[in-house]
């Protein structure tokens, strides 16, 4: 279930990580792994196609740079990406609080049988 949850929210997670500034793929994945405290257990290589897809739709942009002696593609949020992140973040909070509200509600057996 953890993997599915991460996969379903991968775009939001990637945009969220890149809100902190431009990063190359390995740094994005390391941050994602660190911030999710191990919940992120997707095959790391599948994150790159997701980054490419977000770039295709204009939410990310990238440049090739030499970092620490290696040629790396450094991703950054576009303005459109920031807007999309804000929207997705709002939707996620609404969804999470709705789920939380359901899980916190006390079961009412009598009400259910009435």
């Amino acid at each position, binding site marked *: 279930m953890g993997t599915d949850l991460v996969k379903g929210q991968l775009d939001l997670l990637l945009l969220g990580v890149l809100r902190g500034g431009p990063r190359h793929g390995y740094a994005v994945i390391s941050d994602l792994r660190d911030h999710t405290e191990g919940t992120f257990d997707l095959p790391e290589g599948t994150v790159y196609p997701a980054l*490419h897809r977000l770039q295709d739709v204009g939410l990310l942009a990238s440049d090739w740079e030499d970092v620490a002696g290696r040629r790396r593609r450094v991703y950054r949020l576009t303005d459109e990406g920031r807007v999309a992140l804000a929207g997705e973040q709002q939707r996620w909070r609404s969804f999470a609080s709705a789920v939380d509200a359901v899980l916190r509600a006390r079961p009412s057996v009598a009400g259910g049988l009435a």
Partner: protein
Amino acid sequence: MSRPGKRWSDDRPSVEAQSVEAPPDVARTDDEALSVDAPSVEAPTDSPVEVYLDRLLAAAPGSPRDVRALLSEAEAHLRDATAEGVKGGLAQAEAERRAVARFGTVRSVATAEAHRSSLPFAALARRVGVSGLLLGAIGGIAIGVSGIITAILGALGGSTFIVDISPGSHLAPSDCARWLANDPGAHSCYQAALSDWASEIVGFRLVAGVAGLVALAAFYLVRRRWTSRQRFETLPAPVVDTIAVTLFGLAGAWMLGLGVDWLAVGHNGAGQWLGAAPVALALGGYYGFRLLRDLQQAPVASS
């Protein structure tokens, strides 16, 4: 992780050649990717990272540029992860093996990349819309030009050359009244009808031409706005050229045939077709030339 025995040749195909020839479904599992005896791709070393990258090269979908980019990123990632493992106390080979294992199977990465490469509906709709707008604009302008040519033919050959009304045609009295009111100098209903129809034939085409110019302006506006946002895309040139050469070529041939036939049998109005056919045929020829050039320049890689 050192494997004994086999030496690998260095004459493996280029990135471009392999990526064009290898279908996306040749992705393999990690075990296969790390197997020295796997048959299809030769690697220069048996290092897990090298073998994995060779497998990924063979399996990755997309254009040569996409494949090269994915390979570069994958290699940088695997080298970083290996360095991290070595720094944490692992032997080089073990660090590479773990880096590869964490990266995921070649199949999973290639499949994710293939899904990413498939065009989203919105992008496809954008491409169709933009290309349609351009072709519609060109078509509209072509009709406008045919209106000018038809007007010239009408001036040279008379209204009967561009209007298909014969002297014996039945003309409704109510229409006659309207035509004569619009053309008080006409000597008969037939003359007034000729004048009205000729101006309609030319006028409607000129209106189409103006609409084409507006559509062309809209196209350039869209291109300017979307280019700055990196969203401007059209259908591939061979697709646009194929559609255009078919539309303009068929329309031109049909109108030329109709015009020549009407001229041959002495039917009035042949000029309305003969005024439009050259424009359509010229555009058909232009797009046909572009299509041939596209195909000659990119016979394999176009996709």
